[in-house]
C-alpha cells in the first residue's frame, strides 16, 4: 500500500518512537484485531455450517471445526432442490444468474460511460440542471416505481421474462455510476481530446479509443459494483419471475428456504447455498480490491 506513508506520518515522527507510542500501537492493533474478529466470525460460521452434518448443527455448543466435514452438502443441496423441482438444476440456475448479471452489467457500464462522457466533456445549456436532477434520483425509493413498472411490463407481455432485469440497464439506470465516471472523465486533460480531433477522430472513436482506456481504473471498480449488484439482485426477480426454472440464485435460495426447511431448518444446505452465492462475488472483489476500493473512494471523497 502506497498510502500508508502519506498524510499523518509527519505528526507521528514528532511524537517519536517512545514507550507511549508502542503502548498506543498495541492498543490500535488490539482493537483492529477485535474488529476483524467481529467481521470474520459470522462469515466463518457460514462456511463452517455449510460443512457440517445435521447432528452437528444443534449441539448447543460453539464449534467452528466441522467433524466430520461433509463437503458433499454442496452437491446434496442441488439434489434436494431437484427433487422438488426437477428443472432447477445447478447449471440452469447459475446460467440464469450469469445471463441476467452479464447483460445488466454490460448495459450499465456501456450506457453510464457514454452518458457520463456527455455530462463531463461537452458544454451545453441545461447540462448542470440535468445532472443535478440525475443525482437527485438516488433519493427515489425503488418500491415507488415498482407498481407502475410492473404494469408496463405486463402491458408489454414481458412478465416472467428477463427483460425487466436486463435491457433497462441500457438507459444508464445507476446515477452513482454516471457520477463516478464523470469524476474520472473530468481529470483527463483537454489536450488529449484536442489532439485526437486534429487527427480526424470522431466522437465515437475518441470515446472508444481515447477516453475509455484512460478511465479504466474506474471502469474496473464499477464492474465489481455492478457485478455484485446484479448477481445479488433480489427484489426485481422476486416481482417479475414466476417460473421456478427461470430463477436466479437469490430466488432459488428463497424457494429452497420456503419449500424445504419449513419444519426443520436444514442450515447446512442453506449455508452451502449462501456460500456458493457469495463465492464469485468475493473472488472478483479480492482480485480487483485495489482498484475497487480506490475507485469508490474517489467518488465519496471528491463528491
Amino acid at each position: 500500500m502506497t498510502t500508508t506513508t502519506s498524510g499523518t506520518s509527519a505528526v507521528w515522527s514528532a511524537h517519536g518512537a517512545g514507550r507511549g507510542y508502542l503502548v498506543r500501537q498495541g492498543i490500535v492493533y488490539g482493537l483492529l484485531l477485535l474488529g476483524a474478529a467481529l467481521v470474520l466470525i459470522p462469515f466463518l460460521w457460514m462456511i463452517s455450517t455449510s460443512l457440517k452434518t445435521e447432528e452437528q448443527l444443534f449441539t448447543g455448543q460453539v464449534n467452528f471445526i466441522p467433524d466430520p466435514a461433509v463437503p458433499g452438502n454442496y452437491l446434496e443441496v442441488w439434489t434436494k432442490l431437484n427433487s422438488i423441482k426437477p428443472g432447477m438444476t445447478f447449471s440452469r440456475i447459475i446460467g440464469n444468474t450469469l445471463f441476467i448479471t452479464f447483460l445488466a452489467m454490460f448495459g450499465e457500464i456501456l450506457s453510464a460511460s457514454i452518458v457520463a462522457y456527455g455530462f463531463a466533456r461537452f458544454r451545453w445549456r441545461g447540462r448542470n440542471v440535468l445532472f443535478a436532477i440525475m443525482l437527485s434520483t438516488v433519493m427515489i425509493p425503488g418500491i415507488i416505481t415498482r407498481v407502475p413498472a410492473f404494469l408496463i411490463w405486463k402491458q408489454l407481455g414481458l412478465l416472467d421474462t428477463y427483460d425487466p432485469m436486463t435491457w433497462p440497464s441500457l438507459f444508464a439506470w445507476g446515477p452513482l455510476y454516471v457520477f463516478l465516471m464523470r469524476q474520472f472523465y473530468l481529470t483527463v486533460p483537454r489536450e488529449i481530446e484536442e489532439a485526437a480531433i486534429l487527427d480526424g477522430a470522431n466522437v465515437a472513436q475518441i470515446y472508444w479509443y481515447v477516453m475509455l482506456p484512460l478511465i479504466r481504473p474506474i471502469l474496473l471498480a464499477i464492474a465489481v459494483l455492478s457485478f455484485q449488484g446484479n448477481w445479488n439482485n433480489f427484489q426485481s426477480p422476486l416481482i417479475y419471475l414466476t417460473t421456478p426454472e427461470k430463477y436466479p440464485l437469490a430466488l432459488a435460495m428463497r424457494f429452497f428456504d420456503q419449500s424445504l426447511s419449513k419444519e426443520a431448518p436444514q442450515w447446512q444446505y442453506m449455508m452451502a447455498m449462501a456460500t456458493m452465492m457469495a463465492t464469485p462475488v468475493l473472488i472478483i472483489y479480492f482480485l480487483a480490491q485495489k482498484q475497487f476500493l480506490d475507485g469508490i473512494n474517489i467518488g465519496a471523497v471528491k463528491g
Partner: protein
Amino acid sequence: MDPGPIATYLPTLVRYAGVAIGLVVLMIIVYRVQIALGVNREAATGRALVVPWVVGFLIFNVFTIGASLYLSFTEYNLFKAPEWVGTANYEQLFSLSLAPLESPDQRSSDALPRRYDEIIRVQTASGGFVLGAKEEGFWRAIKLTLPYAFLSVPLGLAGALAVALLLNQHVRYLGFWRVLYYMPAILPAVATALLWRWIFSPNGLLNSAFAPLYALVNIPRPNWFFDPALAMPAFIIISLWGVFGANSVILLAGLKGIPAELYEAAAIDGAGEWSKFRHVTIPMLSPALFYNLVTSTIGALQVFEVAAFIQTPDSVGTFLNWLIYREAFDLRHMGLASAMAWIMLLIILALTALIFRSSEAWVFYQGAREEKA
C-alpha cells in the same frame, strides 16, 4: 411453464439488441435535429450522448412516479380497471384514534373503536391511553423502520469513524485491513440475511456462545426475532455488520486527504489530541461524513432482503419496504400500496432535506479555488 433455457434467453437477447440499436438511432436523430436547428456541434454531441439516460428517466422515473401518484388515488387489483376513490387510501392510512384506558388492564380492542388496532399503548397506575389505527400494519412498519434508521445509521457512522481513525494510526498492511473490513458489504444481502437468521436462531451461534451467561443470570435462551424487545437490537447488529466496515474505508480515504500541515499548525498552537480531532479532523472529514449520512439513511429506510428472509411475527419485523411489496404483489392492493410508497418517498425527501439543511451548520467545504491552488 418453463420453455427451457434457450427459449428463455434468446428472445430477451434479441430485444436487448433491438433496444440498444434503437437508442443509437435515437442519439443520431437527436444530434442531426440539433445541427439542423443551428446548434453548435459540441452542444449537439453532448445532448445526444445523454439521450439514453433522459429516455430512461422519462419512462422509469417520471412516468412511473406520476402513475404511482395517480394509482394512489385509486383502487386497483390488476383485474379490473383502476377505480378512482379520491383520497380514500390516504384517509384509510391516516385513520388514527386515541382512546383513554379506563383501567390498566383494559384490553386495547375494548377501548378502541371498531376496526381499529393498537399501535402504541401507554399504561399508568390509574389507566393510560392507547393509540390505534385502521391500517395498524402500516404504522407498525413505520414504528419499526424509522427507529431502525435513527439508531442504526448514527451507530454505524460512529463505529465507522472509530475504525477509520484506528486505520489511520500508521498501521502496517493497511491494504489487508481495508479489504477485510469492507468484505461484509460485498456479500449478497440474501446470503447475509439467511446467515444472521441462523446465528440468531434459538439454538444458533449467539445463544450457544452466551449460554453460560444466560445460566448465570438465570434467564431462558431468548428467541430474538420473535420478541418485540429483542428484534430491534438484532436487526441493528445485522445492519452494523453490513455497513460500518464499508463506511470506514470511505472515511479513511477522507482522513488520508487531510493535509499534515493542518495538524502541525494545530500542534504549534498547543492543541492536544482531542482538540486536533475536534477542530481539524471532524471539519475536514465532514463532507465524507455527510455523504455517508445521506446514503446510509436512504439505504436504512429501504431495508428489504433482511425482512424477506427473516421470518418474524408480522407485528415484530415487517419493515416498510417489505410491507409495501406484500401489499402490492401478494395482496394486489395496488392503490393502497402506491399511497404507502408515496408516504415513504415523502419521508425520505423530508429526512434528506433535514440533513441538507443541518449540513450548513456542520459540513465544512474547502473553497474549490483554494483546493486547486
